[in-house]
């Protein structure tokens, strides 16, 4: 049989099998499982066939609940059906899983196991999700590695067909799903041999058919339901045997033998660890190491967790065992122990009862590795050591410092030395191609040499300037080390300013190789290194090399793409392959990747290879000593609050693993406004203001996605204290004598997106390319601007009540309470949020759906929602993806209820308080900023009186009185939420009539999870799951909402008409009922140069694709047409806008005929909608639904 090896990740390894043995796949994207579904869709679109020669049907649903329903339906009608999911997705599938299992239906759900959202969401891996599915009746089969995931995907399929019990086949999210490893690919012949055709025919035979009808899904009464549940027992009893048979058959075919419970260790082991998932590989390797040291230890890897076969478990436990530690990668608060622990204890207890075992060993349970927390050989050794205690600590944790309840055990890190292994670490930027190049290196080595290769990639949570760390191992033997590299032979730093921020040199082995991408050459570099890095280097005494990769890339026309250059340096320096062979392989890979793009591109990359070889410089360390560094560090953290210094800073510096439990909030509550302490300095180019050209329009600060540009006006007398280079000009508004205007750029927080420059209307008469704001190199202005910022922050914040922020020009002076988020450079969403925070921030409640906005809005370590000088600001929370409308509605209900409670209490206490004040508070108009300000004063006054009172009613009133300042409740999320998964809730919230405001940041695609189609994706655009172009029209959510009659609806696009955006947000907030704002948000998922995002917004409106509308029921009430069309008739064709974007262009390039037809269809849709809207704008008011 042909033996084929590939280097792929766990998701692909699994999807490869799942696709081949199924006919239908219904999915919904969720990290970290999305790739499996995307691959299935790609293969289906390309016509790849399953083992029976058919092309599986892949369908994307509106939620995991929807996917599970579709899977259920497809199964019930006889198709071989699968799905891929994780975490909350699996939770949404649970109801159907009970049904599928209850009906004994063969199916495999492949799960990249992930944490569940509790005190916080986490996208990373543990077993919380699959453990929550253990009572559904699904079998649970666990894989520990990429190879196992590939193999057991097939074993699960074979077993489900035979046993009729549906399976969850799971493996650890990220650690296995995203680890790239070299595996043996199962040939189709073996796949076919594993699948029993008769079982498939039987499965189809059980499918519903009008030709032999049955009824399934009945409602049952007390008389038979119970017995009915017991009918399945025999199937569950038989299942373990069937799985083992499948494993044995698989072994006969491939030579790879799996067991339900696999024991590795000494025959006379006294201490045994029981574990499942990727951690088993770490335990196995450490056990072998300890055995070699003479220790009597062993380990059991659990593969089939449900149905749990105690008999098979007991068979593999050596009789010599005295102590067992059972490890769970999940937490079940309040339980007597975690699930696997309880099952092992129960099994042993039952064995004792039935005399199958003489003396029950000591069994302890422990938790490890939640949310992909590292699980290392040191921890395993620590667990074995903990077992030595006379009374070992039960219910322990390992890998953290629980200094509150003392659950954690101690351990010392150590490394399983393997001299055959080359280990390399690469610190890169998300956008510099480091990860891509490393994946490429693994492929080169894994698929073109006999060496084995493993790659694992760690990303930070920022979307702009994100840091990546690539962990690569190469060696002669299969690499089973599912933990990060601690001691590397090679460390490369791909971004010079990481030197200060990130610990890198400590990861080097002594005498290893350190490669630094540096603007300084071998002579200059030493003095430019921070002092502590110099010391670290001298201690490790590595081979030290520098290359100015950025300059080399620039010189060969590759812009900032340094990946090829750094890859070449790695191969040359690491010695993984002989140099010439490595260069030949890299060039081969370049030709393969870029061949289609033409010889010129290939040659450019070849030039980069040659230039890298020529420019690599060795730094002589002999005679070096630590010298005062010229490197400038940022000391801003010194002034931060204690929590930020102690906790947030540790996370920022990559030392979050060391934070003890006591330092963390118990309920997931964190202080806001922490991004200001991070100063990420990710852009080398920043905007610089030219006051002499500035017309003070406010456009630049209005569009800035990161709130980096701030405006203030102030009395000129402040200038006497201003730093030398602080810039200001007289304000150009009437009625402000002796007043200066200043625009301050927070250069350290800028992402360099260029939107401010693009939008600036003021150009120099001498040189049209010079504007009132221009991008320039940051280095020369950095220190000046830092000093200016310090002064600017001391200037008084402009009084909201004196500002006319009905105009963009006035709104620029409102303090943003959303700043410096980790959103993409040039993000199209965040300017809307910043504006929201400016307009209503000090009384704002935000319910934020999961997605991009919850990640850049709420992902630790630092968060952007912040407070004003009074300590007021947006209170923000994220519940789930699907429930955000309901979540926000709940906030509104509370606000209304507690306002009423406050009013009632005011009435009750009227006799003890100032009655006039009470009347004023209760009847206060609060539409305008000045009115709100006065109301705050009234309440402050009342609080003084209340605090003097001791009655419980007074205390109750104090706890709710703030509700009488009008609160602004906003439900924020993307189109994936509003159009798809949260659609039902959103519809209900709109129909509630309550005073809620819904802001849909419409990127027309699932941006956060990587560009999957939503119901907002437009006709003719491509997206994942619509690779042939979307044929169905975008849902007109605006018209749906308008149909209620009492919903304020607006469609806005800041890049097309900022004034209309401002007006709509203010009108929506003022409207005392439900409001819906659909905000066009350009996005990297559109495939545009983000600098042109605002231009695209303008074009979207200019072609009529995105008409600017406002539907205001208040107008209907006063006899006016409530539907206002704010944009002009289309002046360009749809394609003139669309074909600037890769999402449309892809189809034009791959299938121009189809693209042309779809574009015509899309144009027709645009024309029709425009005509309808134009019509509506001219209707009489009576033509619209009346409002109560």
């Amino acid at each position, binding site marked *: 049989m042909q033996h084929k090896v590939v280097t792929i990740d766990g998701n692909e390894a699994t999807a490869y099998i799942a696709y081949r043995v199924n006919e239908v796949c219904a999915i919904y994207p969720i990290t970290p499982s999305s790739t499996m579904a995307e691959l299935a869709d790609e293969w289906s679109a390309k016509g790849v066939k399953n083992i029976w020669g058919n092309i599986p049907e892949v369908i994307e649903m509106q939620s995991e609940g929807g996917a599970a329903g579709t899977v259920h339906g497809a199964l019930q009608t006889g198709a071989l059906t699968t799905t891929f999911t994780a975490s909350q997705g699996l939770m949404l599938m649970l109801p159907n899983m009970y049904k599928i299992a209850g009906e004994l239906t063969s199916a495999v759900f492949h799960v990249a196991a992930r944490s569940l959202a509790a005190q916080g969401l986490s996208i990373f891996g543990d077993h919380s999700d699959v453990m929550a599915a253990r009572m559904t009746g699904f079998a649970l089969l666990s894989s520990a590695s990429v190879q196992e995931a590939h193999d057991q995907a097939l074993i699960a399929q074979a077993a489900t067909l035979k046993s009729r019990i549906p399976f969850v086949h799971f493996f650890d999210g990220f650690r296995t799903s995203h680890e790239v490893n070299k595996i043996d690919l199962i040939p189709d012949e073996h796949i076919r041999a594993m699948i029993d055709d008769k079982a498939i025919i039987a499965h189809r035979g059980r499918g519903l058919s009008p030709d032999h009808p049955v009824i399934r899904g009945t409602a049952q009464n007390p008389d038979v339901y119970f017995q009915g549940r017991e009918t399945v027992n025999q199937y569950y009893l038989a299942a373990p045997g069937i799985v083992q048979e499948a494993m044995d058959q698989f072994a006969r075919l491939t030579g790879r033998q799996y067991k339900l419970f696999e024991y590795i260790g000494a025959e006379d082991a006294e201490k045994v660890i029981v574990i499942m998932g990727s951690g088993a590989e770490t335990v196995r390797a450490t056990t072998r190491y300890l055995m070699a040291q003479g220790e009597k230890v062993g380990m059991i890897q659990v593969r089939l967790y449900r149905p749990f076969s105690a008999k098979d478990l007991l068979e593999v436990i050596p009789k010599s065992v005295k102590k067992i530690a059972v490890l769970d990668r999940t937490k079940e608060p309040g339980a007597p122990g975690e699930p696997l622990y309880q099952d092992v204890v129960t099994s042993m207890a039952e064995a004792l009862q039935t005399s199958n075992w003489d003396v029950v060993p000591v069994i302890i349970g422990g938790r490890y590795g939640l949310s992909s927390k590292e699980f290392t050989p040191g921890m395993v050794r620590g667990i074995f050591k903990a077992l030595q205690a006379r009374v070992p600590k039960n219910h322990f944790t390992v890998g953290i410092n629980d200094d509150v309840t003392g659950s954690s055990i101690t351990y010392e890190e150590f490394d399983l030395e393997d001299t055959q292994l080359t280990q390399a670490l690469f610190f890169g930027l*998300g956008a510099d191609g480091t990860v891509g190049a490393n994946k490429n290196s693994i492929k080169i080595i894994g698929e073109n040499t006999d060496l084995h290769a493993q790659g694992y990639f760690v990303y930070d949570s920022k979307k702009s300037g994100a840091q990546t760390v690539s962990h690569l191992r190469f060696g002669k033997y299969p690499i089973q080390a599912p933990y990060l590299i601690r001691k590397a032979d090679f460390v490369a730093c791909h971004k010079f300013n990481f030197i200060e921020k990130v610990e890198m040199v400590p990861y080097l082995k002594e005498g290893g190789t350190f490669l630094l991408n540096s603007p300084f050459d071998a002579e200059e570099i030493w003095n430019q290194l921070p002092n502590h890095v110099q010391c670290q280097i001298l201690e490790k005494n590595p081979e030290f090399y520098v290359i100015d990769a950025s300059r080399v890339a620039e010189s060969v026309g590759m812009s900032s793409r340094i990946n090829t250059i750094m890859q070449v340096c790695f191969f040359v320096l690491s010695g993984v392959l002989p140099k010439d062979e490595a260069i030949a392989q890299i060039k081969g890979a370049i030709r393969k990747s870029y061949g289609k793009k*033409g010889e010129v591109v290939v040659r450019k990359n070849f030039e980069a290879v040659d230039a890298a070889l020529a420019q690599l410089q060795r730094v002589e360390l002999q005679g070096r000593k630590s010298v005062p560094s010229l490197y400038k560090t940022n000391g801003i953290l010194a002034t931060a609050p204690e929590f930020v210094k102690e906790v947030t800073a540790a996370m920022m510096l990559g030392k979050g693993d060391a934070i003890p439990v006591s330092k963390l909030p118990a309920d997931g509550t964190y202080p806001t406004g922490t991004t200001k302490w991070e100063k990420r300095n990710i852009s080398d180019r920043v905007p610089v203001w030219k006051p002499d050209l500035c017309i003070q329009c406010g456009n630049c600060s209005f569009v800035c996605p990161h709130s980096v540009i701030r405006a203030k006006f102030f009395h000129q007398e402040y200038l006497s204290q201003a730093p030398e280079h602080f810039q200001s000009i007289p304000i150009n508004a009437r009625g402000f004598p002796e007043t200066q205007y200043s625009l301050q750029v927070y250069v350290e927080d800028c992402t360099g997106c260029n939107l401010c420059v693009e939008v600036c209307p003021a150009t120099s008469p001498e040189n049209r390319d010079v504007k009132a704001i221009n991008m320039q190199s940051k280095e020369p202005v950095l220190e000046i601007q830092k000093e200016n910022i310090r002064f600017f922050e001391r200037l008084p914040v402009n009084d909201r009540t004196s500002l006319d922020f009905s105009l963009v020009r006035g709104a620029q002076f409102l303090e943003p309470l959303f700043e410096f988020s980790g959103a993409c450079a040039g993000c199209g969403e965040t300017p809307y949020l910043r504006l929201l925070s400016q307009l209503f921030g000090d009384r704002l409640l935000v319910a934020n759906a999961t997605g991009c906005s919850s990640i850049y809005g709420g992902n630790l370590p630092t968060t952007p929602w912040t407070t004003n000088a009074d300590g007021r600001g947006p209170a923000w929370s994220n519940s789930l993806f699907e429930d955000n409308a309901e979540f926000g509605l709940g906030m509104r209900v509370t606000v209304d209820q507690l306002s009423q409670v406050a009013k009632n209490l005011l009435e009750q206490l009227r006799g003890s308080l100032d009655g006039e004040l009470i009347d004023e508070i209760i009847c206060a108009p609060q539409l305008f900023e000045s009115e709100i300000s006065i109301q705050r004063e009234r309440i402050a006054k009342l609080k003084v009186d209340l605090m003097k009172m001791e009655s419980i009613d007074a205390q109750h009133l104090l706890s709710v009185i703030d509700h009488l300042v009008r609160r602004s409740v906003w439900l924020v999320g993307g189109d994936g939420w509003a159009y798809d998964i949260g659609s039902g809730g959103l519809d209900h919230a709109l129909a509630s009539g309550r005073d809620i405001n819904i802001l849909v940041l419409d990127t027309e695609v699932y941006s956060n999870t990587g560009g999957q189609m939503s119901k907002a994706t437009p006709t003719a655009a491509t997206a994942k799951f619509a690779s042939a172009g979307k044929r169905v029209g975008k849902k007109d959510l605006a018209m749906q909402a308008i149909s209620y009659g009492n919903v304020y609806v607006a469609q806005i696009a800041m890049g097309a008409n900022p004034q209309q955006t401002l007006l709509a947000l203010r009108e929506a907030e003022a409207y005392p009922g439900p409001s819906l704002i659909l905000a066009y948000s350009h996005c990297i998922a559109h495939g545009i140069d983000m600098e042109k995002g605002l231009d695209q917004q303008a074009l979207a409106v200019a072609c009529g694709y995105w008409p600017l509308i406002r539907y205001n029921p208040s107008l209907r009430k006063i006899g006016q047409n409530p539907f206002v069309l704010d944009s002009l008739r289309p002046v360009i064709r749809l394609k003139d806008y669309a074909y600037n974007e890769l999402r449309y262009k892809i189809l034009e390039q791959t299938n121009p005929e189809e693209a042309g037809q779809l574009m015509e269809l899309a144009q027709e849709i645009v024309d029709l909608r425009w005509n309808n809207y134009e019509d509506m704008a001219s209707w009489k008011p009576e033509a619209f639904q009346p409002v109560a």
Partner: protein
Amino acid sequence: MNSLKTTYLGLQLRSPIVVSACPLSERVDNIVEMEDAGAGAVVLFSLFEEQIRSETRNYEKVLGATSNAFAEAMNYFPDIEEYHVGTSRYLEIIRQAKERVDIPIIASLNGMTPEGWVEYGQQMEQAGADAIEINVFFIPADLRMSGVEVEKLYVDIAMRLKNHVKIPIALKLNPYFSSMGNMAMRLQETGVDGLVLFNRFYQPDFDIETLRVKSSLEFSTANEIRLPLLWIAALYGRVELSLAATTGVQTAKEVIKYLLAGSDIAMTTSSLYKHSIGYLHIMHKELMQWMSRHQFTSIDQFRGVMSQQNISDPTAYERANYIRILETNG
């Protein structure tokens, strides 16, 4: 029965009316329609090296910024490696057109770098193009560049391509050479097979509101044919090159004029935009009617009869004639 057969670049064409490079040929269905409407050949829309480079650059920039950069999204677009960036789509159109029509397909190349001309030219040849029309779109904005250097540039490109490509090459020229005739002779020495007279330079306009340069291209009009007409008449019979006329062909009348001047073919685009591809039928009908009226049965019978070398007063094409006109009018 009249014959419209003609020879251009050594290719046998059934008609002298050829569709010049324009976006209509981006759709293979349109090319089929052009053949059905009688076109002698189709020059495909131009492949711009600059555009390909820019698209590739943008593609790399967009994808580079979005790939493998964030834990939840390894990329944002489906099936990333299969996009037809670069020349592949153009080459696919050549291949498809060759499969579906019998008339010659002439690729049009607008290069930028020495390597680009050769690489793309070879790719077009391999994809099955019958000939290549090269469009040297060069504005000598560098004031230090002499006319000799400019001319050398054209000669070098022609020579380079001829050395690397076996199919016929036509060079589309602009009229702004000091000595067009001499230039034609020099180009002939490079081995090129024909000249296309003339291309219309990109001529920028200003938007006086935004103070920005704006670009717009307007269709040629019939009265623009005079310059090409002059030089085709002047070159006919004096160079051993195929001559193609382009610019201003709105009706059969301009086709006839160009043929009378000595061109092998006349190219049209704007007429098809103004009417439809089917308008080629009418042009052919009118050409045949004119031939019948004048009792011509083949193109060769009247090609070049109005050329400088064939008319009784050759000075009609020279300055002396111009002075006479002035005197007459004065």
